[in-house]
């Protein structure tokens, strides 16, 4: 392995990751400097249950009509985000636990998921370009984030075999993209995962307090009225 690739996989990633972590900390501090809304009413339901329900929403596609009636979009969502998880995992496995990618089955699983995620990225990009509704709401950041994510997945497909002795190019491309991501993500829509717990928490807390979450499916009356 060349010194360039070694530094790129290690020191450069650590610096970029530290940068991202620092920006995220500042970002969260910024968010928390806004006052929290106060709830001073007597509760009907339970805030904690509401928060848990709201947080678990991501794995309950039946709980939300938009996912329930649009299974293909939900499956795309799952594949795309599995790609993100495995892509990030690969950036750690390659420099720190390279033996894992000596197991063919693991490499194949990573490649399959990353390739599928890249395909979903292309589908999503086409949807964003073709649909008049999506075009109107899309910003340059939306397009750009999708393109670079798709390229990241694609580069990951070639990087995970970790065959630097054959060619370092796939790994160089993959880690340059990773570095770029770590620096760019905090300023783009991709950082939505940072906000996800908060938006879902706020919604779940209010809706849980009022007894709206967990959603009722029929029959149950509140305690004291049965």
């Amino acid at each position, binding site marked *: 392995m060349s010194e360039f690739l070694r530094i790129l996989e290690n020191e450069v990633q650590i610096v970029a990751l530290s940068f991202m972590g620092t920006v995220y900390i500042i970002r969260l501090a910024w968010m928390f400097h806004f006052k929290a809304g106060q709830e001073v009413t007597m509760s009907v339901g339970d805030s904690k249950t509401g928060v848990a329900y709201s947080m678990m929403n991501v794995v309950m596609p039946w709980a*939300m*009509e*938009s996912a329930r009636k649009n299974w293909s979009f939900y499956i795309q969502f799952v594949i795309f985000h599995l790609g993100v998880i495995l892509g990030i995992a690969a950036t750690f496995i390659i420099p720190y636990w390279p033996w894992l990618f000596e197991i063919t089955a693991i490499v194949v699983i990573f490649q399959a998921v990353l390739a599928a995620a890249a395909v979903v990225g292309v589908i999503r990009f086409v949807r964003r370009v073709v*649909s008049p509704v999506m075009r109107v709401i899309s910003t*340059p950041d939306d397009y750009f984030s999708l393109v670079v994510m798709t390229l990241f997945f694609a580069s990951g497909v070639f990087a995970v075999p970790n065959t630097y002795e054959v060619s370092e190019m796939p790994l160089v491309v993959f880690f340059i993209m990773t570095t770029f991501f770590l620096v760019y993500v905090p300023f783009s829509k991709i950082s939505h995962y940072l*906000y996800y717990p908060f938006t879902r928490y*706020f919604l779940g807390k209010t809706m849980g307090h009022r007894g709206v979450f967990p959603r009722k499916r*029929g029959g149950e009356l509140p305690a004291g009225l049965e």
Partner: protein
Amino acid sequence: MNEKAIDISDVMNLPLDTKEQDKAVEENVPSIKEGKLKTYNPKGDNVKRLLGMLKTKLNRQVVGSMVGCVHCGMCTDSCHYALARPDDPTMTPVYKADQIRKIFKKHFDWTGRIVPWWVHAEDPENDEDLNRLKNIVFGTCTACRRCTLNCPMGVDTATLVRLSRSLLTELGIVPEGVFVVSKDQWETGNQMGVSEEDYLDTIEWMEEESQDELEDPTLKIPLDREDCDFMYTVNPREIKYDPRPLGAAAKIFHLAGESWTMPTWGWDMTNFGLFSGDDTLGAFVASNLYEAARKLRARRIVISECGHGYRASRWEGYNWAKNKQDIPSESILVTLIRYINEGRITVDPSKNSLPITFHDSCNLARSGDLTEEPRWLLKHICTDFREMYPNRADNFCCTGGGGALSMVEYKPLRMEVGKVKADQLAATGAKIVCTSCHNCVDGLTDVIKHYKLDMQVVQILELVENALVLPEKQETV
């Protein structure tokens, strides 16, 4: 603003009408004089004022919804405006929320401040842009919160719409109807400008009617009685236009042997602050009600059938008034269930034999906690209850939510998008659609009339009244 180029909606360019505002200024209305009710100043630097106010209205929840949207478009199919106008991108919830989000990004988002075009961060340029924002947030959204519950990220678009409304209300850039109703609520304490004399007359009239119907002169609608089990609060529509629900409630409370009262001040449980975004008005109206209950030492507050009234009085009002809830409150639906469960009233479901469906009010189902209570009641008071689909928190708005009924200029669009509701109603095959909200009664009536459906709208109280079995005579009331 950017979207002018794709403006294909006829409501976007409706001008700001200030005739009622001008009239109120001329009349030197106290709420305007005291600075509570804001009017439009064409010479004021309104854009600058809006930007200045935005920061003061942000809290953690709102900021979360500002930064959390990923423009995935999943909210599109949840909105009846977008479903009825699928080719009009301006009808989508995300587009509507983006109108305030772009201003937020321009001032609070790092990327938006440095490279605004990259994330569509943008300020309104002039009052024309603010008027367009008014038409979007008042005219193309009923704040029904259906998109909120269908957002994978948990972005509360309805809250962002209300925030936008609140900023515009501070500038007097509001539909005439919103201004007039707000003025009435500030001036008279109720949103329909009912005078105390008319209020007392209606109560007396309903008391006499109810006495005659039950042939029982001991039936009373008590006023300002202290230490009762509950204080009953109503929608001014029950005083001004349709007092039958009040009469029905009086009969039921009497038969149940209830200890109850109504206040002479603080009886309006509706709250236009919810629709206009004016928390100060919201706090004023809600505080009237809470204060009345405290003064009368009522053990509970019972709220008659009204979606936004229930939401405002039961939930939001305490928060607007920063008034920790000290007296329990409940919907009359809960009170009715208790009466039936405890055998305090007897009902015969065969007296409501026509096919009946139920429309969930947005404010009760998505912002309140009442979805099973009305169904429990319907199963006890009618014989042919047919569920509407989708239902409960997935139900579609009646078209009249968010104060839309007061904004006549947007009615053509409201009726057009009402097709979603009309299809839902027609599919039930029911002859009667029951709801638990006065606003929904009017919204549904408009839809039924417009789409020529063979249906009538009733409220649960009417059905309970119809199903009542009198203890001694065993006759229908």
